Every structure is written in structure tokens, then in C-alpha cells.
């Protein structure tokens, strides 16, 4: 095999920084790259529409009560809710070959594994629909007297939940306790107290300051003002200068928003921490499956007809759809439409809606199929989520952790957010080959696991070019965002983008709302 060429080294430098790239080519060891591929996520089919222009006028037409465009969580939830309300003449048109969007999962003979969203926060008593969904899945053990569900212990993220690799050793948790100074600890306690204050806060209307979903949150001016500044400025203004605390805040923003703390709205930064706590001091359980939210996708998809590989090219307010599927162009006459697609696609299909300053972050996700676990180093034992403190990646999640298998083959899901401008990221990686990506993934993981390369049988890589909407300052409380929720004729809008934050709970909320708008519309005008 030829030596690693300069372009691959440049690619590694671009993603992981120059010091990691500089190590390439040192030493006599031939860098083996395991077999694998970049998987298709619908980008090619989506981009082809823009390139090819409008399709031929359809000759085949069909009628349907509700046509749902987009088979991600929002569209699937809308179909689920409609079914719960007795509306079953529903079809989902999905661009990609499989439903789920970034919540999809896959399975190998060893384990299921995720491609993006891989957990939800255990619902509280005021989330009855999510409780009903989990109940259908058999995921609820019992109910507490206050209406909070006890989630099946097998699904509550198992200890050790997180560990961080720092200077040759793993440490428990994400906040690095070892070596923290008195001042570090003081700031950490102060920060926790601040989060606790916000998580127990209720406005005069009884609303939380930061709630999941966002639509339930208080709109008091002192809170919405937080959306005008960045999380980094907020931390500065409160005197939170501790490097450890700032790292944690930065990591959290990269993890949930593909932004650093300086690029994130302070409201969103606080939301990350405060929305995950119940009324008390403790964080809500993290609920997870081996294939992440793929289990939820599979459950939703069981009951609904989904037509994959369909590109919808036109949606009219009268309920007319034009689409191109595997058998060519066709038309749909729907009584109601749910447009459950990302904001930029919705803008393309329904151009004259109010616009927001939508900004999309790119992501890379790699699934590494390991034939055995690497030898562990000193420190904390293997965890669900293993984070490398000095890396630009987010580390990896082990798909077999929850099941309790500590040995033998497994799948690790490695996440990488592009925190810079999305268009720049998309341009930079457009020519990267599978081998370039694999080299990045392996170089990153070789830091904590020097033998990893020899243990990997296969790597699959997904590049989510428009992976998630990002809550930059000003985006969340933009009046245009709320205006975009309004139906247009027979078209109802649902997508996590409408919250300005990419989360399962948000997509679920908009799916429910869109379905309920249709139920209300049907009651107003009986068929």
C-alpha cells in the first residue's frame, strides 16, 4: 500500500488539527484501513432535484386523506398521532430508502447501532404523549403517584454513563474532577446551583424556564433576552472562567448543537442543562436503545405505509402534490398535507413563507464494527459514551453497553460535529474518499486506543451535510419562527427545525401539533 498522501494528511489536519496529522507518516507501521463505505443519506437524490429542474407532468394520480412529506421523527409522529385519532388513510413519502432521518438505526449480527440521535430524556408527568409512546413500546415499568413514569431499567442508561480521556487516562463523568482547583470547584458548584435555580423556576403561568419541548417554555422577557447573547458571553458575565467548566459547556454545545459556546444562544446553552432536570435536583434518566432512536423509528414505521425513494417536487396549498418515485412521476390529491421536512426544503417547496436566519450544522457519524474490545488503559472502566478531551470529535458511544456485554464484538458510533459555517464544511468534505474519512476516525480513536485499527472489521460513514438546525443567538425567539408554524391552506408544517433546536422531543411535538391541526380542521369541515 502506498504511503499516506498529502491530501489525506490535509484532511486529517482539517478535521483533527495539525498535531494529529503530523503523526501520519512517522514510524514504519503501514497504516491499515479496514474495508467500509460512505453510506447514502438521501443527499444525492435531494440535490438531483435542484439540478434537474421540475419533473414531467404526472400522468398517474392518487387520492389520500393525509399525505405526509418526510419520514423523519416529525412525519412519523404525525402519522402515529393521526392513527391514534382514527385517521388511517395516511401515506408517508420519504426521500431516502429508509425512514427515520438522522434518528435512523441499523443492525449487524452483533447489535443494533445508531446513525445519529441515540437517546431521549425520560419524560416527566407533563409529557403524556411521549409516555403513551413509551408505554406502547413496553418501556414503562410503573407510574409514580405524581404521574411520572418509571422507565424500564433495561433502557435507563447504565453506569458508567460517560467518561473522558485526558492525559493517558480515563476519568468518570464529563466534568474532569481530578486536579480541579478550589476555584474550579467553586465555579462548578455555582454553575450547578444556577442550573438548579432555572430547572425549578416556574413563571406566573406555571411554565418552566427551559422545557422540553421548547413550545412549553416561558416567554418572560428576562428569559427571552438570553437568546440575544451567546452562551459564552453569558458565562463570561457570570464570572464562569474555569477552563474545566468552559470545556464542559463547549462540549455540550458541540454535542447537541454542532456549535461552540461562543456560537450558541445563551438560552439554548442553559436549555441543554436545565431542561433535563425534573422538579428535584437530579437529572432525568437518559433512555437509550442499542440502535438509538432507531427503535422508535421502527415502532412508528410498523403501522404506517411509507413510500421510500420518493422526491416530492411540488406542494400546493390546495393539497396537490407532485412527486418522482422509483416508478416515475406521479401526483397526489390529499385532503391534508403534513410537510415534515427541514426548513430549507420547506422553503423550496412553499417559497412565500416568513424566513428565519436558519443555520445548519454538518455532522459526520462513523460506525466501527469491532471484532473485540481494545485493552483498557488506566482509569475509569468502559462507559456508554467515551469522550476524548483534546479532540474535535465528540468521542464514541458503545452499542453493546446498555445490554451489558463488556467483552467480544461490538459497534462503536463515533460523532463529529462541524462547528464552523455549514457551507464551508460541506465544501471541504465534498471530495473526501472513504479512506480519508476512515483515517480521520482511526487517528482520533488511536489516541485512547492505540490498537484500535487492528480490531476494526468494517467502518461505515455518514455525512449529514445539513445535519441539524443550530440555535445561534437570536434564532430561537425570532418572531418569524412562530409565524412559520401557521398552516398554509391544506399544508401543515412539522419538523424539529421549527423549534430552532434539533431534538427528538421537538420533532415529536411538531408532529403531534400538525396532526391535531388536521383533526381540528376535519371537525370544522366534516367530510
Amino acid at each position: 500500500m502506498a504511503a499516506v498522501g498529502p491530501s489525506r494528511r490535509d484532511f486529517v489536519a482539517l478535521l483533527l488539527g495539525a498535531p494529529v496529522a503530523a503523526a501520519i507518516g512517522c514510524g514504519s507501521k503501514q497504516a491499515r484501513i479496514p474495508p467500509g463505505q460512505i453510506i447514502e443519506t438521501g443527499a444525492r437524490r435531494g440535490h438531483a432535484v435542484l439540478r434537474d429542474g421540475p419533473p414531467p407532468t404526472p400522468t398517474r394520480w392518487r387520492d389520500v386523506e393525509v399525505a405526509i412529506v418526510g419520514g423523519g421523527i416529525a412525519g412519523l409522529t404525525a402519522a402515529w398521532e393521526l392513527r391514534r385519532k382514527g385517521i388511517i388513510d395516511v401515506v408517508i413519502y420519504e426521500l431516502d430508502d429508509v425512514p427515520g432521518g438522522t434518528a435512523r438505526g441499523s443492525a449487524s449480527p452483533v447489535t443494533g447501532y445508531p446513525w445519529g440521535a441515540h437517546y431521549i430524556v425520560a419524560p416527566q408527568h407533563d409529557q403524556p404523549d411521549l409516555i403513551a409512546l413509551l408505554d406502547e413500546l413496553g418501556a414503562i415499568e410503573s407510574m409514580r403517584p405524581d404521574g411520572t413514569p418509571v422507565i424500564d431499567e433495561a433502557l435507563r442508561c447504565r453506569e458508567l454513563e460517560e467518561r473522558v480521556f485526558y492525559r493517558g487516562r480515563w476519568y468518570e463523568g464529563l466534568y474532569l474532577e481530578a486536579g480541579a482547583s478550589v476555584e474550579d470547584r467553586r465555579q462548578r458548584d455555582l454553575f450547578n446551583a444556577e442550573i438548579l435555580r432555572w430547572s425549578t423556576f416556574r413563571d406566573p403561568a406555571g411554565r418552566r424556564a427551559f422545557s422540553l419541548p421548547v413550545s412549553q417554555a416561558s416567554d418572560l422577557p428576562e428569559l427571552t433576552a438570553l437568546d440575544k447573547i451567546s452562551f459564552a458571553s453569558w458565562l463570561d458575565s457570570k464570572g464562569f472562567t474555569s477552563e474545566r467548566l468552559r470545556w464542559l459547556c463547549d462540549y455540550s454545545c458541540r454535542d447537541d448543537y454542532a456549535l461552540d459556546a461562543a456560537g450558541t444562544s445563551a438560552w439554548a446553552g442553559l436549555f441543554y442543562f436545565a431542561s433535563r432536570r425534573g422538579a428535584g435536583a437530579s437529572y432525568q434518566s437518559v433512555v437509550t436503545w442499542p440502535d438509538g432512536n432507531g427503535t422508535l423509528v421502527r415502532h412508528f414505521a410498523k403501522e404506517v405505509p411509507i413510500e421510500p425513494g420518493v422526491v416530492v417536487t411540488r406542494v400546493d396549498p390546495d393539497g396537490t402534490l407532485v412527486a418522482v418515485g422509483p416508478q416515475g412521476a406521479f401526483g397526489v390529491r390529499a385532503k391534508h398535507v403534513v410537510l415534515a421536512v427541514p426548513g430549507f426544503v420547506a422553503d423550496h417547496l412553499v417559497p412565500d413563507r416568513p424566513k428565519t436566519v436558519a443555520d445548519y450544522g454538518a455532522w459526520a457519524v462513523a460506525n466501527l464494527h469491532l471484532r473485540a474490545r481494545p485493552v483498557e488503559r488506566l482509569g475509569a472502566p468502559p462507559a456508554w459514551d467515551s469522550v476524548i478531551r483534546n479532540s474535535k470529535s465528540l468521542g464514541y458511544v458503545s452499542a453493546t453497553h446498555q445490554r451489558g456485554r463488556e467483552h467480544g464484538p461490538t459497534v462503536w458510533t463515533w460523532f463529529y460535529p462541524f462547528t464552523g459555517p455549514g457551507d464551508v464544511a460541506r465544501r471541504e468534505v465534498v471530495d473526501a474518499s472513504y479512506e480519508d474519512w476512515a483515517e480521520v476516525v482511526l487517528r482520533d480513536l488511536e489516541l485512547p486506543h492505540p490498537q484500535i485499527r487492528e480490531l476494526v472489521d468494517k467502518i461505515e460513514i455518514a455525512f449529514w451535510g445539513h445535519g441539524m438546525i443550530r440555535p445561534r443567538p437570536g434564532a430561537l425567539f425570532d418572531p418569524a419562527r412562530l409565524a412559520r408554524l401557521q398552516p398554509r391552506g391544506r399544508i401543515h408544517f412539522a419538523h424539529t427545525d421549527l423549534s430552532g433546536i434539533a431534538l427528538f422531543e421537538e420533532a415529536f411535538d411538531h408532529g403531534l401539533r400538525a396532526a391535531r391541526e388536521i383533526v381540528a380542521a376535519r371537525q370544522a369541515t366534516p367530510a
Partner: protein
Amino acid sequence: MADDKPAGRGIPASALYINVFVVATCGLVYELLAGTLGSYLLGDSVTQFSLVIGLYLSAMGVGAWISRRIDTNLAAKFLEIELAVAVIGGLSAPALFMAFGTVQHFQFVLLGFVFVIGTLVGLEIPLIMRLLEGQATFKDIISRVLTFDYIGALAAAVLFPLVFVPQLGIVRTSLLMGALNGAVALWGTWLLAPQLGKARIGLRIRAVLVIAGMVVALGFADRLTTFAEEQMYADPVVYSESSPYQRLLVTRGRSGFNLFLNGNLQFASADEYRYHEALVHPAMIAAETPPRRVLILGGGDGLALREVLAHPSVEAVTLVDLDPAMTQLGKTFPPLAELSRNSLEDKRVTIVNDDAMVWVDENRELWDAIIIDFPDPNTYGLAKLYTRLFYARVNARLSPGGAIGLQATSPLFARRAYWCIVETMRAGGLFVRPYQVTVPSFGVWGFALARKLPFEPPTRAPDVALRFINDAALAGMFEMAADMTALPVEVNHLDNQVLVRYYEREWKRWQQ
């Protein structure tokens, strides 16, 4: 180097700077080794590292202060000190490993090593500066020596976690640094030849001996680690093996032999009958009808199995143990096979090597008796086998009249941990009767007997030949002395793992 004065006294200055670099690298590696060993043998890495670093730096100060008393034969003294660093530093890790098994106040030995090495290294830098005196201006000497010193420290700090520990391990790293120190000293006998005069021959021989000693020790590094390991056990090690899951080790002493997993005693042949009879027979007789189908989770040594097979009602036993190396050892290691009466080879027995947590979830059979014998819950990986979820799964595999017997650590040494296990079983839907026996090797040991419905503890010993259990022993087992009665505890769940914390906190008090 343009401003270097001609090497009047024949010392190649740039070569000596490389010397400084190596001395600094090796010195810091010894310091990191001591810190690592301290945190790994004594725990509390923050305390260990800060003690080691602080003492090392102050010892360097002591060395620097002493250096003014060295007035003659600078070059020879410098090389002698370097050889001393090579020997003491190079042997520090193996010596400390061995000391841990034999010395009572290991902390002081560790810090003693750190102090001696720090002092010697602290002597070296001032001596090198003085050797260079006259070779360059004072400001150049200071700037270069300190530059190389600090760069050497950086090299050590980078190489230690990235290369040395992962690739070589602690003992080999220590020996390699010793050899490197020796090699630099040997080179020094040429560099400083004019100053050394005749002394150089003796120094060369000593340097060669030091290097040879380190190289030989490197060759024996594997034996050395086992040797060191032997020092940690009271009796000679007769068998040791590292499986992907754990370290298995058997020692042999006057009273018999002992099995250790990851350093924790699993049984001593002298009194294991008390433990295994107590683990197995109460469940066998508490079951509504004599058990025909029995499940054993853990217990790969085959000793609990021996007790199960003593009951004539037993038709089939499945034994689930994670580690094939353990069940293989139980079958093929002669003293163990003899002790278990070759129970693992019995026709009624099926051995499964799988994780019990996953196996009980996937298996759909029902069992009349379930015997659970896992190592104590000192890691998250083991403590998951003591969660409410695990007991709920085991409960689902128990026949309606069946009974469960399990080991539950010591109610005396780890009282909360013991009661946490009992309460967690109750949360898993079981009715539990706690009991205890005294096993001399372990002390007072706790067990739990459980069924699906409320029940009275058994009062009649089984009709099989036993050494420990009779009616009187059975009656005493279910009584808890005042210092072992229930305490308020939380239930152990997969996502809280309170048991590990109870266990660690309580056992720590007894391990001083």
C-alpha cells in the same frame, strides 16, 4: 554555537547538553513511574501524584544544595551519580512492586525512592553546569542547560503516557530508563575522558555492568512481574493466567490452595466447604419439591456444582460462567478438579460461557433452584449482576415453587452493601430470607435465600453427607447479630449502581 569558546579542557559541550536532555527525561520518567505505581497500588491518584511531584522537586533542591560540597573529581562524581540514578531509578518499579507485597508501610518506601532519585537528579544539573564552566559564558551555560533540562521533561511527559506505559508497561519502562541512564554514563566516560584520567576504566566497567544488568532484567520482565505478583500473596503462586476477562491465580500453602480472581480470594480449599454448603443447600431444601433442574450463575470453579450434584433429585444443571478460562481451569487443573469431584465433567451438566445478565434475558427455561455465585460487586461490570433488573430477570426464570441461593458479600464488613443486595432482590419481586455463616478465610459471610412467595426458612438439614450443615447450623444461620442487622439502603439499579459505592466505602475501612 558560534560564541563557544574553544574546548580548552576538551569537553564537547554540545554532547553534554544531550546528556542533560537524557538525564532530565529519565528523571521525570522515574517520577511518573512512582506516581503511577502509587496511584495504582494505593489508589487516590491525586494524593499520590501530588506527594510524588512535590517530594521529587524538593529532593532536587536538596541535591542542588549538596552539590556545593562536591569540590574535587567533578567528572567522576558526575558519572557515579548518573550510574546511581541508573541503578536506583531503573530498579525502582520492580522493587516497588515487590515491596508492596512484603513491606507494611509501602507509602514510605515509595516516597523514599522518590526522594533518593530526586536528590541524585538534583545533584546532576549543578555538576554539569560546573563541568561546562569556562566552555561558554555563564548566561549561555544557564540558558542551554536549563533549556535541555526542560525539553527533556517534556519528552518524558509526552512519551510516558503515549508510548512507555501502553507499549512497555511499568516495569519494562523503568528498566529501559535505567539502561539508557547507564548508556549515557558510559558515553560520558569518553566525553569526559581528559578529566577522568585513570578513573575512567573503572567507571566504564561499572557502566557496562549496569547496562547489562538492566538488559538481563528486561529479558526477565515477565517473570519479574509474576515474581512481584507472588510477593503480594501469602503463599507461592502455582498457577496464573490472564484471560480476556480477568486474572486467574492459584496459590498453594500449608493449609491447601486458594483461588484468586483479579487479586480477590474466591475460596480457600481448607474451608470452602462451609461457604459452598451454605450457598447451595438452603436453596435446595427450601424449594417446594426436590429440585430437578438447577441453574448456577457464576461458580465456574465447579464447587457449588459439586454440592448441587450431591442431591439425587437433580437431573440437569446448567452452569453459566462468563470466562471459559475459569471453567477450563476447574476441569483440568488437578487439585481443583479433585476438590470439585470432577463435577464439571458430570453428564448432567451443561456449561455455557456467556454473560449471565444477557443469558438470563435470552433463556426461556424455568429452574427449580438457582444458585448465584458472582465475585463481589466492586466494578460496574459485576454490580450489574446485582441490580433490580437482574433479579427481576432471574425471578422470571424461577419455577413457581423454586428457590434462589446467592452469595451477597459480608454483612459485617460491608453491612450496607449486603442489605442493599437483599433490598434489591425484594425490589425484583422476590421474598428474601437473609442468612450468614462464618468462613474463616473470609470472616462472617452473607447469603440470601429467596422465593416467589413468602416462606419460612428451612429447619431440617438435607439427607446428604455434609461436613458443615446440620439442623443446628441451619437454625443459627438465619439469625443476625446486632452488628449485622438491616440498615436503610437504596435499591441498586443499572443507572445508579449505588451498590458499588456502598461496597467500596465499607471495604475500604477494613483494608488498611
